[in-house]
């Protein structure tokens, strides 16, 4: 049995002659919570739309639950919950009608969990979707996605527009889903602390490429930010490969290196620096380093 719930092969997407995705390869194994990160316009939503079959590819193939995205049958779609960016619901429907439509079209519906969520979120049933606040729309979208007990949950910036309490509720819900066996989540968000809290694998999109694709812990080990102080002025070239970012202030050099290993450490030691200290990096720091404008994309995998 194929255990990759999501598979993307050589995905290329052009919009009006502009390359948005340039040969993306990505796999998400069953049970994984994959945090897909990238700056605005990096192509996160495009990948999700292609995966869901709402956007055609320029080249390449994408698979969900072992089926090509363009050929997803209703029974496959019934296993996928989705919270789209901007909470794309039918705006002129009343909440009650939208819920009924989703319930009627779904293959399974967890009444208990859905009613609990609706009660928690206190959503007004008689109001039109367009008259709901952004936060309420996000909550409704999330409740609808969760109601089908999805095997795969795709969340495109799901906490956008949610207040702190609702965001926390959402994360707790997500963790609840994770705890159910074999559930897989693809999660895009700009709130990196949320991603760091729940994701166990991270992908970072920059300049149309997937520059990072590895487990979160491994990412933190592999990307190192070092403050190196030299006795004299720092060398012009450290002869290290995969330098993500490098800054020099007098005798001090701050360098961020991807795929840090002993070999690179040995090369650095040949320059006999006076001191070399590691600066701890959060996911947000790593993200900023990897997506800094003007830096060449360096693969961390």
């Amino acid at each position: 049995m194929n255990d990759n719930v999501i598979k993307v092969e050589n995905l290329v997407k052009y919009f009006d002659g502009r390359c948005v995705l340039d040969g993306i390869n990505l796999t998400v194994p069953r049970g994984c919570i994959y945090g897909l990160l990238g700056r605005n316009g990096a192509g996160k939503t495009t990948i999700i739309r292609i995966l869901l079959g709402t956007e055609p590819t320029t080249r390449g193939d994408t698979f969900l639950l072992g089926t090509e995205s363009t050929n997803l049958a209703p029974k496959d779609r019934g296993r996928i919950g989705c919270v789209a960016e901007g909470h794309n619901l039918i705006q002129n429907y009343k909440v009650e009608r939208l819920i009924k439509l989703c319930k009627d079209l779904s293959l399974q519906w967890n009444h208990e969990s859905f009613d609990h969520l609706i009660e928690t979120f206190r959503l007004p049933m008689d109001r039109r979707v367009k008259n709901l606040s952004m936060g309420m729309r996000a909550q409704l979208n999330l409740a609808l996605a969760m109601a089908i007990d999805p095997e795969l949950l795709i969340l495109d910036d799901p906490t956008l527009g949610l207040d702190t309490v609702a965001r926390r509720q959402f994360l707790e819900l997500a963790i609840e889903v994770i705890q159910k066996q074999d559930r897989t989540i693809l999660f895009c968000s700009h709130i990196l602390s949320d991603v760091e809290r729940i994701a166990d694998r991270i992908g970072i999109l920059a300049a149309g490429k997937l520059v990072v694709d590895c487990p979160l812990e491994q990412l933190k080990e592999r990307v190192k930010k070092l403050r190196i102080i030299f006795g004299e002025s720092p060398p012009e070239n450290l002869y290290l490969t995969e330098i993500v970012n490098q800054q020099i202030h007098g005798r001090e050099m701050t360098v961020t290196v991807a795929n840090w290993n002993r070999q690179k450490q040995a090369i650095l030691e040949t320059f006999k620096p006076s001191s070399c200290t590691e600066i701890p990096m959060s996911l947000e720091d790593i993200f900023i380093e990897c997506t800094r404008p003007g830096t060449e994309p360096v693969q961390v995998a």
Partner: protein
Amino acid sequence: MLTLIRREIRDHIVYFIAAVVFSAILIAFLTAAMYNLDWVGSVVFEALSVPILIILVLGFSAMGVTQMYLDRNRRISAFLSALPVTRSRILTARIIAGLLAILIVLVPLTITAIVMGRLTGPPIPISSGHIADILTTVFLMTFACYCLGLLTGWTANKIAPTFGALGLNLVLVSLVFVKGFGPNIKFLLVLVIVACLIRTWHKFMSTSL
């Protein structure tokens, strides 16, 4: 599928109500005409047939345009396709809803024409073959105009579907008036229907939602 058809009907209920009202008016005229009310018969068959036909085709064309235009601009299919629904089902449900609206007008009218024809005889000399020809052509024409509406409605631009559908419908209606209700026009209308449905299908299946 039934849920999707129900959704289409409910979302475009105004067209279904209009179809029922229009059908009732036509039946009233037809009934009056059949009961040898000569002035009504001549008014219906000579003066009102053209505007009735134009209202009919423009109405159904507008329905096709509205279904596709609102879908695209409210991103309804984008939402539905995240549920256990395929694009082909969404479009099939839409076309079935359109066909139902057309049948709401034409089926009662056909039944009335047959029943009244048997009871009282037609108001003007006409064979039953002619009635069948007229009704089949009217059905094909309204469905062709509906399909043109579907085809031109899938756009973000408001002017293109309005004037595009209007222009194409007028060409079709003119053709029917020129060629009459014979087999040639039926063949042409079937060709238009098939071409529009294939193009709409292709557009809807391959475009981004």
